[in-house]
């Protein structure tokens, strides 16, 4: 009965929303939105960045991206805070990820593929201003490489010390590059370097630098999240201190 009401409710709103969005003009001959047109025009001309999405993400709406990076940072921090257990409990449980060892094929393939995956990720975030992709995508690719290792090798564990350093320094680099803009007499996140030539690797001023920092940060954060979640074992008989 409750499900039926929920179904009717959801169907009703769904149909309403469909007709709301149906009224919006779709498939026009060119970009209709005012800011969209502006960005398409100024991204190659003023910023010399070939990928218009990158120039929006990092420059025009770079403040959103700073917020976005912060959201990931909060997620790792909150994850740590939520799943944190005291060292004593942790050692007693001696957590293991999986009960079975991965097959040899997976292990050997992992040894071979992981460097390539990391290389691809680095390529994607270094070329974020030229080709599809960027810091987030590259970072995620690198983290999948780490996930591969975590799944293939039972004993493999991530060392948290360098992860913390990379995470902190990369995030501070992003915010710091933004703040540098103010100290050189411009505005926050404004480009203060030469822009170079369209479609060169060294073009776009601080945009690729920020995206590389984002790439490092995302890779470190996702690795941290994966390791935190995967190394939690949930034994049934565990009784934690219920202060």
């Amino acid at each position, binding site marked *: 009965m*409750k*499900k039926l009401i*929920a*179904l009717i*409710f*959801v*169907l009703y709103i*769904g149909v309403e*929303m*469909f007709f709301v*969005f*149906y009224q*919006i003009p*779709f*498939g*026009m*001959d*060119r*970009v*209709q*939105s005012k*800011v*969209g*047109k502006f960005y*398409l*025009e100024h*991204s*190659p*001309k003023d910023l010399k960045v*070939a*990928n*218009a*999405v990158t120039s*929006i*993400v990092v420059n025009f*709406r770079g403040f*959103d*991206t700073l*917020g*976005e990076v912060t*959201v*990931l940072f909060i*997620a790792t921090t*909150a*994850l740590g805070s*939520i*799943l944190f257990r005291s060292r004593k409990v942790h050692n007693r449980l001696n957590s293991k990820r999986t009960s079975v060892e991965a097959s040899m094929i997976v292990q050997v393939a992992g040894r071979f593929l992981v460097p390539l995956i990391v290389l691809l990720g680095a390529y994607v975030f270094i070329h974020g201003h*030229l080709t*599809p992709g*960027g810091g*987030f995508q590259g970072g995620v690719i690198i983290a999948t490489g780490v996930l591969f290792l975590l799944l293939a090798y039972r004993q493999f564990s991530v060392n948290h010390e360098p992860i913390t350093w990379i995470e902190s320094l990369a995030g501070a680099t992003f915010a710091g590059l933004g703040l540098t803009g103010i100290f050189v007499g411009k505005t926050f996140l404004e480009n203060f370097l030469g822009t170079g030539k369209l*479609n060169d690797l060294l073009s776009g001023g601080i945009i690729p630098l920020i995206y590389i920092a984002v790439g490092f940060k995302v890779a470190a954060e996702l690795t941290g*999240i994966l390791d*935190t*979640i995967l190394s*939690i074992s*949930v034994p*049934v008989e*565990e009784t*934690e201190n219920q202060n």
Partner: protein
Amino acid sequence: MDNILILKIAFIGASITLLFIGLYAVLTKRNLIKIVLGLSIMDNGLNLLFITMGFVKHGTAPIFSPLVMEKLKTVDAAAQVMVDPVVQALVLTAIVIGFGVTAVALALVLRLYRHHNTTNIDEIRNLKW
């Protein structure tokens, strides 16, 4: 019906359907993991809807690559055939935020499971719902 209309109905319909499948799951499912999955499906439906709204007839990706510039010569001509980059940038943000929320939600589920030894929402009602 012309192609554009079919595309329109298909994409808007698909994204709205995804969105409300997710909402239905959130409203009715009793398993915490399934609720989180529902949230994730909702996010994806919404992201698809965003991208759909940026569609341009015969449009290409908004990247001024050497290939595009060679074919169309000027930036202005190239900008004519590109889809809206703003919605794509917004979706990138929305995806990352959705990821963060999902990660925190799963961590909370893990904690709840540790305490109550169940993922059924009906058995975890210490507080009023």
